[in-house]
């Protein structure tokens, strides 16, 4: 079977989830990846949506974060203040899944404005949503975003959600309880924070991807780990499950 770069990205993200994890899921790719994981290697993955649905088990991919199928299949549906205050904030969630309009070398994320002037932005983005507190409080964060120099920037125009701030020690100094972004999964490969510098480094490429392509698509001088791994091909089971999930209802 052949596959698209988008499919590879989603499969790689799904594989990053462990069975039994409690996963705070945003709509779009994170939701697709989490649902794929639940239907392949992680049947006991607990999907938590910020609409208040805990343990949702949708048979088809939800189109919004508050689709009826999430409420109907959830173990519990709780009010929105409760999902943030009782479940996210105290660190009960293992993995938070985030997207980004911009992400920088320390994994800080911008989903607010493009441009230097917040009051007169070049592009007005949707804003924070649940992301700042997901980034702060989940045990770890996985970012899924397509690789491009416009997205992977030296420094984000606006810090909506904190990764490692300006480097090692910043999260502790800020009192953030979660570990921060552990993986950035793109259509080209996987980036992980360098243990010493906290700078995101290419540790894995998808099959057939030249690391030079990832460097070119990154707005900072992207370091490449010495033992660069190659993502195993998507299995036929992964691909067929993904395509079934994504088939329009």
């Amino acid at each position, binding site marked *: 079977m052949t596959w698209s770069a988008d499919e590879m990205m989603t499969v790689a993200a799904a594989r990053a989830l462990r069975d039994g994890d409690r996963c705070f899921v945003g709509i779009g790719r994170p939701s697709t990846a989490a649902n794929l994981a639940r239907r392949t290697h992680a049947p006991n993955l607990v999907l938590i949506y910020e609409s208040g649905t805990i343990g949702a088990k949708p048979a088809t991919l939800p189109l919004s*974060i508050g689709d009826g199928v999430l409420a109907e299949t959830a173990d519990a549906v709780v009010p929105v203040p409760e999902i943030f205050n009782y479940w996210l904030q105290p660190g009960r969630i293992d993995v938070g899944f985030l997207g980004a309009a911009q992400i920088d070398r320390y994994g800080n994320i911008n989903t607010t404005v493009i441009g230097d002037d917040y009051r007169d*932005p070049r592009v007005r983005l949707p804003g924070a*949503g649940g992301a*700042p507190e997901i980034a702060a409080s989940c045990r770890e964060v996985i970012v899924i975003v397509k690789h491009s120099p416009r997205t992977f920037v030296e420094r984000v125009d606006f810090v*909506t959600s904190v990764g490692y701030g300006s480097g090692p020690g910043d999260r502790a100094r800020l009192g953030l309880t979660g570990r921060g972004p552990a993986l950035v999964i793109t259509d080209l490969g996987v980036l992980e924070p360098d243990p010493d510098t906290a700078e995101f480094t290419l540790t894995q490429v998808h099959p057939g991807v030249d690391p030079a392509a990832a460097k070119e698509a990154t707005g900072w001088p992207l370091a490449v780990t010495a033992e660069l791994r190659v993502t195993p091909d998507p299995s036929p089971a992964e691909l067929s499950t993904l395509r079934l999930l994504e088939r329009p209802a």
Partner: protein
Amino acid sequence: MGVIASLPEAIAELVRDGATVALEGFTHLIPVAAGHEIIRQGRRDLTLVRMTPDIVYDEMIGAGCARKLIFSWAGNPGVGSLHRFRDAVRHGWPAPLEIEEHSHAGMANRYVAGATGLPFAVLRGYVGTDLPAQTTTIKPITCPFTGEVLTAVPALNPDVGIVHAQRADRAGNVQMWGITGVHKEVVLASRHSLVTVEEIVDHLDPRPGAVILPSWAVTFVAEVPGGAHPSYAMGYSERDNDYYQAWDAISRDREAFSAWLRERVLSGVPAT
């Protein structure tokens, strides 16, 4: 209290120019018909509050109702941007739009503070982000027991809180189920409130997951079947995903939007 009224009557009574108005509903049970009635009644200079301004707020902003938006995520969910919102923020069309921006956790806690009669709420939030520099509504607060520094946000107490729900009984007690978001909080935080419902029934039989708002905690109840469209009311309707998709093209262009507004809202027969 819990007075049953028509939608136009309730909006005329509650929503005045310059008021602070929150229409809530987290994907589910969004009071869209009430937003259209506010547009039809020509309200201006509103401070609109909503965690997730989506199509109905894009419409209200494009129609010129709003002076300010207090929010945490402004987009067309699953589709993309809100073009009327962006046009107002960037180009002041049809009127300049001031923004007060928070995270979901911050907004939810601001409603909770409002509902509980406290002037502020405390959360772990915003630390290290660029949001606090852009508003006076995010401040540090120190725990008097441990010395730890946390974040405070001020209460939201809108003049009017509006939500949609599945049902009410003839006494005006409201019942809703499924994803209820901040429905209870916004009604309790607001000075006055309106709940539009799919139907008014003789008796609210108990249901799993149902939340009840007693009649005396609600100002007006209006029967507006389909009043959440294009969002949905679990047990009554499905989300109209095509509408969300179609909105992108309609809203991209000022002329297309204005034509849509004339045809579909302004000339619309008010729901009764």
